[in-house]
């Protein structure tokens, strides 16, 4: 008689599945958590599971998710970037100023990307060649950029004629999918490919795991680190452009897309996704799921009448839970495995 075991192809053998399960423990845990929330939500809100709301949810998530993927590269090498919120602000300001003055979108976008690239390059160079803590460096660049924004705008908002083509990016659809969601999907797929299949992705992992060993085995550690900061700033730039395109104006104080808190949301998404701030651990899919979990909660809570004050509180607790589960802490599940080092 054909047992279940014999029918399953070899790829799904028990051993392979356990290895796979161990490797993607965090991702599976968060995915399950999301499934549970979906299941429970249908009893709580009649609106949540409608296609319209779900697409809206994905659009809301896209801004954070894109920034989080950028942050993932930096966290993977054991760094951190606190300046992405400010990068988003700069990007927003520059793009709106240019468009109001009649610069075509096709010129504006490359210029803005160059601005983002420069921010990342500066961050990366100071961290690597200045031998300073990334926390300090990016805290300072964040301040400087916010200062630039306030000095330039005088704290006033900027608005004016913004080309329709640009607004389509923020509000438009490809088929039935919002453009930001499509952009997110493309960037996630690209990042996934880079991490899985390229030498650059491998070098990010090994640099994060052990810098000295990476250096000793022929990796140009400084270049890899600078690249990570550049990618982070570029992803933040894209996220910033998408959110400006939704609003069509720039406000330095209220900061669209929650730009000031953005770095923290992005870091939270990466960490919830199973990455370690010590570096060398984490995945693109985990980060995406982390951002998604965040987006789901922000979307669901207002629908079921949870005030934004309590929302913060509950979100905090859920993140804490997720992090406790994904770290090998003693609070949940099995005790940390004691590794008998050499007997």
């Amino acid at each position, binding site marked *: 008689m054909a047992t279940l075991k014999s029918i399953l192809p070899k790829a799904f053998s028990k051993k392979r599945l356990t*290895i796979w399960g*161990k*490797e993607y423990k965090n991702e599976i845990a968060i995915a399950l958590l999301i499934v549970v929330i979906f299941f429970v939500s249908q009893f709580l809100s009649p609106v949540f599971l409608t296609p319209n709301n779900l697409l809206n949810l994905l659009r809301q998530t896209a801004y954070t998710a894109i920034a989080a993927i950028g942050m993932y590269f930096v966290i993977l090498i054991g760094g951190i970037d606190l300046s992405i919120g400010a990068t988003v602000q700069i990007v927003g300001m520059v793009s709106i100023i240019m468009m109001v003055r009649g610069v075509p979108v096709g010129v504006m976008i490359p210029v803005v990307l160059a601005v983002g690239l420069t921010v990342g390059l500066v961050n990366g160079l100071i961290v690597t060649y200045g031998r300073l803590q990334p926390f300090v460096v990016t805290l300072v660049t964040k301040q400087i950029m916010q200062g630039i924004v306030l000095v330039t705008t005088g704290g006033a908002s900027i608005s004016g004629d913004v080309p329709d083509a640009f607004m389509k990016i923020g509000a438009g659809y490809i088929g039935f999918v919002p453009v930001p969601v499509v952009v997110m999907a493309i960037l996630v797929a690209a990042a996934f490919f880079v991490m899985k*299949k*390229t*030498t*650059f*992705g*491998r*070098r990010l*992992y*090994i640099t994060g*795991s*052990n810098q*000295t*060993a*990476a*250096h*000793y*085995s*022929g*990796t*140009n550690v400084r270049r890899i680190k600078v690249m990570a900061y550049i990618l982070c700033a570029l992803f933040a730039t894209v996220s910033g452009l998408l959110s400006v395109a939704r609003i069509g104006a720039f406000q330095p104080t209220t900061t669209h897309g929650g730009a000031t808190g953005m770095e923290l949301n992005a870091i939270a998404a990466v960490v919830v996704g199973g990455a370690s701030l010590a570096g*060398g*651990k984490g995945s693109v899919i985990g980060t995406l799921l982390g951002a998604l979990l965040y987006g789901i909660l922000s979307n669901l809570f207002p629908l079921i009448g949870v005030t934004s004050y309590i929302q913060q509180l509950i979100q905090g607790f859920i993140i804490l839970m997720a992090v406790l589960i994904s770290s090998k802490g003693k609070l949940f599940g099995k005790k940390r*495995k*004691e*590794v*008998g*080092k*050499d*007997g």
Partner: protein
Amino acid sequence: MDNVFELQGVSKVFSGNTVLDDVSLSFRRGELHALVGENGAGKSTLIKIISGVYRADKGTLLLNGNPVKFAAPSDAQMAGISTLFQEIQEIPEMTVAENIFLRREPRYPGTFVVDRKKLRRGAKELVGRLGLKIDTAAKMRELPVSTRKMVEIARAVSQKASVVIMDEPTANLNAEEMQALFHMIDDLKNHGVTIIYISHRMNEVFSLADRVSVLRDGKLIATLDGEECSEERLIPLMIGRELNALYPARRSSVGEAVLEVKNLSLGRHFKNISFTLRKGEVLGFAGLEASGANAVTKTLFGLCGRPSGEITCGGQRLEIKNPAESIRNGIAFLPEDRKTQGLFLNQNLVSNITAGALDSLFSKRSILKSRFERSQSQETIERLTVKTRGLHERPAELSGGNQQKVMLGRWTIGSHKVLILEEPTRGVDVGAKSEIYRQINSFAEQGLAIILFTTEMPELLGMCDRVLVFSGGALTAALSKEEATQELILQYALERHVS
């Protein structure tokens, strides 16, 4: 018998693997009791149980005849068991004095305020009494590894313990410091302190031990008196089979020059070093601390900045810049500390093994050849007989000897011309040692030119075709295999060149 400490039927299981199996052992007052065995034999687990890091699943511990239970390392310390672990445990930003009195700082009576004067004085006294020359006001991070180790030893010794556990205490020490350590050990024994001693260095065990216990696969195999011990007697007990000669014969013929070094100098580290390394040759680098031997090997790999002088590799003039450049030019380098310099402990074995040849072998236009990576890694762990459950495992989960093999495996892939080995068998058991020696031989037989920097004298004598001896930043002798003896090497290593 006057037993200070006893283990009765102690067992420990880690995720289904029995690491210790019904071990009963007693330690007498004032004896040095050596524990020997291969990596994975259960020594480390055993001392971790004694020192309160792990708890035994079965069995009892008796201290002075009374059953004890240690819930944490601090309990064991309170009970008078002080442990010197293999890894240095110090706090680098604190001074030597502060580290010595860590967690037991002298205080002003009735307060929580540390009496710094007393702390400094106490540390100075202790260091003086132990005959060490260490500046107790220096920060730990400013000191070389071996000095830090000595501080650690001083700390363990100063805890007025009745049992001191030493796990590979001589691993990073030079000859002088080793003498100081052995002195301390004698002193401790005279004061009735029991020492539990773990070392892979057999001659240490023979000269120091009052009794020797052999562990294999988690079981106690035998306990012998120190006098009955010899290599022929112990090694078969440890590995459960006869070990063929530790240094297997090599069938390589030394060929044309591969690496030619002329007048290499680097700041105050070394001056005017010239030598030639040939195909199929194993060239030993010997020297005491700061002799320049290690600085030369590091420099050749591009770790110490740009030296002056001339290096040609395979007929081509080399500009030493960085490791990446050296690897591209065919020079590979096995660093001395596998955990901090060699391995990616939390990455899988594939990432660890292919890291040195990502560009040259395992990718095309920056896209990884995943399948080729896996097959080469699989082939490598089989060839080096790495004990592992599969390529998905991480080095953190492997034993020391297997970690070392993984690191060595990285440099068996690819077309290198020169392989620089730094302490390739440090902290590795006899079985793994002979495996590594066989590998080194097979590299040489394949035509690789090998530089072997090691502080283990028998290794130099057993493995090398020639030995270069360094002292005070100068090359003091080049000895052929026939000429080289322990005495001669030491003599040249102590010769100071004033230049």
